[in-house]
């Protein structure tokens, strides 16, 4: 195997947690609110079903091919050339998605704190930092997540606790005024984010305790769902009907905090949360691209590819969208169908092919 490191199932769970939440906390609440309005707290619950589903599919596929990632077993399942094509689809897909993630990071930092810094410098420095983490391998990523995530989660909960005096729970009534439809429509976009649990397919082969993999994957989905519900509650109680018009509701909420006249300007906390979790998120995607490319080309080592692929990632992040408005529009409309069809459709297809083949034998 290319990667010699091992991580525990618990580390995989904690690694996936920021991988979903980093951008989901910033962009998704307002996109959900545009459809679900007062029921936006329900949407992550519907959306989490796709997370459970994909973890289950990936686990079943991994049981059949324990030492391989999807790039390798797709050639075993449907033959060499179609399998390689699927591998290429995944590599280009993750290059594109990671380009979008890096761009979101850069746009957020430029618009909120480093206003005069050129975008490309921010993007390039982030890619470079992540490149060093990726060179270290999967163990380094696991440790990074273990160090950052407890702090990040605590800070985030602290933000919500500080907002409690300003929260008005009557904003959530009347509940389900128009039935379940708005909340289900609002759950489509979070579904795209939760389908990123597909990345566990690349991490499963490195687990030291694989039988616990499914359990920790599921726990990770539950944790992501709970934090999204909590965020949506806090934002709904704070802003009520205007949530859908804000670009970064969590950031606006943090600016809102004012305790006893001196505890103000807490947006730097959001920035700290965001940079730390975006670092983990970008590194995981980056690692998957590099590892996937090395597996696709049957190389013996993935480290030489880290820097050149980082350069292509930087280009993709600049190329992904001309500006933030178009990017948010894309994320709010067609992106979900793209994410779900690649990250859930293809594994489901592969699993059903193996089941049919198995019955023939």
């Amino acid at each position, binding site marked *: 195997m290319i990667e010699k490191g091992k991580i525990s199932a618990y580390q995989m769970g904690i690694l996936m947690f920021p991988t979903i939440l980093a951008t989901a906390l910033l962009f998704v609440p307002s996109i959900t609110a545009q459809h679900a309005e007062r029921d936006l707290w329900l949407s992550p619950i519907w959306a989490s079903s796709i997370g459970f589903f994909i973890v289950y599919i990936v686990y079943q596929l991994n049981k059949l091919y324990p030492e391989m990632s999807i790039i390798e077993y797709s050639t075993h399942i449907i033959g060499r050339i179609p399998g390689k094509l699927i591998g290429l689809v995944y590599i280009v897909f993750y290059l594109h998605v990671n380009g979008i993630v890096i761009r979101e990071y850069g746009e957020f930092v430029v618009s909120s704190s480093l206003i005069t810094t050129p975008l490309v410098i921010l993007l390039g420095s982030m890619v470079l930092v992540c490149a060093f983490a990726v060179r270290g391998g999967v163990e380094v990523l696991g440790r990074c997540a273990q160090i950052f995530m407890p702090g990040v989660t605590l800070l985030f909960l602290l933000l919500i606790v500080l907002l409690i005096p300003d929260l008005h729970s009557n904003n959530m009534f009347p509940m389900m005024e128009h039935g379940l439809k708005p909340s289900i429509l609002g759950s489509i976009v979070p579904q795209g984010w939760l389908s990123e649990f597909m990345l566990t397919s690349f991490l499963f082969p490195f687990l030291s305790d694989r039988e616990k993999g499914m359990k920790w994957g599921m726990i990770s989905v539950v944790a992501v769902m709970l934090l999204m519900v909590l965020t949506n509650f806090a934002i709904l109680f704070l802003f009520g009907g205007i949530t859908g018009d804000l670009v970064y509701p969590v950031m606006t909420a943090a600016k809102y905090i004012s305790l006893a006249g001196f505890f103000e300007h807490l947006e730097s906390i959001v920035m700290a949360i965001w940079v730390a979790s975006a670092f983990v998120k970008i590194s995981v995607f980056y690692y998957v691209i590099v590892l996937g490319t090395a597996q696709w080309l049957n190389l013996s080592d993935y480290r030489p*590819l880290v820097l050149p692929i980082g350069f292509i990632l930087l280009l993709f992040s600049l190329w992904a969208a001309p500006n933030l408005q178009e990017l948010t529009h894309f994320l709010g*409309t067609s992106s979900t169908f793209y994410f779900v069809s690649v990250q859930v459709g293809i594994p489901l297809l592969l699993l059903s092919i193996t089941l049919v083949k198995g019955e023939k034998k």
Partner: protein
Amino acid sequence: MKWAAILGITVILVLMAMYEWPKMDKKMKKEKSAFVAITIIGWLLAMLLVFFPDMPGPTQLVDAIYKPLGKLLEK
């Protein structure tokens, strides 16, 4: 200005190759060719983006494919 960008990109890629090349074993022919190929792809893409910054990207392609479904969520 464009020539400066091209020069800068080329310098970055050369520095990258100088950092990475000595670390690779002599036997690792496949890795070396993969490294060269990916670097060249990166350089070509960078050149395209320098000369045609408004070139439609992957996002527009995906948007065109999934437009009928995306319209469901249009507001």
